[in-house]
């Protein structure tokens, strides 16, 4: 890499460094929001899939089959085009003329969250199935109500078992946010595309984007592994 390219990705007057950094921040924000919303959906999904009621279980299975079976990009497109159409339609009904659109950030986060929620559903469900009956019985035997049991015993143990799978899902969510570039959100990949268009240096800027994704992924992976290690102290010697 020569000094000229360094200046291009640097923070100097001709550098794209600051914009890229901001874009990386947006990527991270989108990933965190998607993952968090996905956790919520995953919890609900797992509860549905574990419900005694047939209809509820069917809804849960439908959700996970659908969103794990079709490409993420289609989900993003569907929400991007469909979301704005639906909103415009709603606004027309409410008496507001014109065209309305949701911010791409919101659309993208919802789309990615729905997909990651389907994977998190499976993570939570299989973690719950690994709980030992005795752990729950011991709680019942000392008089825990179902809410205390859920909060003090079931939730922490399920979370511990789900942690490795959740770590993997986080990594995919982080990478899937790259799809938001195609619906116009200026996150890391979109910013790199803009920069490489302006400078005619696609290799440089996409390379830098790849590197930034790698750094974000590896750093968070380290954090997750530390948490896992802390949790697993109580399992196995």
């Amino acid at each position, binding site marked *: 890499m020569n000094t000229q390219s360094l200046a291009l990705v640097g923070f100097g007057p001709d550098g794209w460094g600051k914009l890229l950094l901001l874009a990386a921040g947006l990527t991270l924000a989108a990933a965190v929001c998607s993952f968090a919303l996905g956790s919520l959906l995953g919890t609900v999904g797992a509860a549905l899939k574990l419900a005694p009621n047939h209809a509820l279980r069917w809804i849960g299975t439908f959700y996970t089959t659908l969103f794990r079976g079709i490409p993420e990009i289609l989900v993003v497109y569907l929400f991007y085009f469909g979301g704005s159409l639906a909103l415009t339609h709603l606004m027309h009904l409410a008496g507001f003329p014109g065209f309305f659109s949701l911010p791409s950030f919101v659309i993208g986060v919802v789309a990615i969250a729905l997909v990651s929620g389907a994977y998190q559903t499976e993570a939570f469900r299989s973690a719950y199935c690994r709980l*030992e009956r*005795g*752990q729950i*019985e*011991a*709680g*019942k*035997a*000392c*008089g*825990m*109500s*179902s809410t*205390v049991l859920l909060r*003090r*015993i079931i939730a*922490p*143990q399920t979370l*511990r078992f789900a942690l490795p799978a959740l770590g993997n899902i986080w990594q995919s969510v982080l990478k899937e946010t790259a799809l938001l570039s195609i619906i116009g959100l200026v996150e890391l990949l979109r910013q790199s595309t803009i920069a490489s268009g302006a400078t005619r240096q696609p290799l440089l800027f996409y390379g830098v984007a790849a590197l930034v994704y790698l750094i974000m992924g590896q750093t968070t992976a380290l954090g997750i592994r530390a948490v896992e290690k802390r*949790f697993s*102290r*109580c*399992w*196995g*010697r």
Partner: protein
Amino acid sequence: MEPFPQETAPLPGATVIKAVGLTKRYGVLDVLQGIDLEAHEGEVISILGASGSGKSTFLRCLNLLEVPSGGALNILGEDIRFRLKRGEQHIADARQVNRLRSQVGMVFQNFCLWSHRTVLQNVMEGPIHVQGRNRYEVRDEAEKTLARVGMLNRAEYYPSQLSGGQQQRVAIARAIVMRPRVLLFDEPTSALDPELVGEVLKVMRDLASEGRTMLIVTHEMAFARDVSSRIVFLEKGTVRAQGSPQDLFKGGMDESFDRFISHFSRPG
């Protein structure tokens, strides 16, 4: 030795558990076929029987981990309320059951310590989160209780770092820190290596000598004979014989019991 803390001094004679015609059915299998049992404050009752006689199921019915299919159950003077749903009995009042469970201690065969909590946290969990007691006071009492079962020096360990005997002693501490009026033991030494059985039995002996009310399902015949005030012998889901250990172990009271005992006292 300082006795374990207890909420109220035992009133000898008061009925703490009364089961009348208790039955339990799994599909077509009748595990309990009408068991009557009355346990009084201060009694130590050993429930014996071959495997499959329903003794564990019976004990689990007493704190509603299994819901009986029929019969009446009175715990600490309260009739347990059931409701029928699609021909099966269910618990009608979960709050009543939870309240009673907090006064009935249970020790499991495979310890069932919460694996995500340390020894001390395991012991403190119930008093704080079920009984809503003050954390500092509970910590004090938990440490004293752990000291009594000889586990205070392992207070910060996780269950997976302990031997089976140590885990079971912690489980006993976890049960008695709730200041229960009855203690249920479900084969507390069956999952232990032979050399670890003694340490658990010693703790149980101490508890019995303090006048605690205990119901014990066990295969430890010598322990049952020495410690119990009464033996209840189950066979095929019914009470086949009961009486004082002296009477029963003398032999000749019940043919089936004698045969059962002879399996354990075989020389070798």
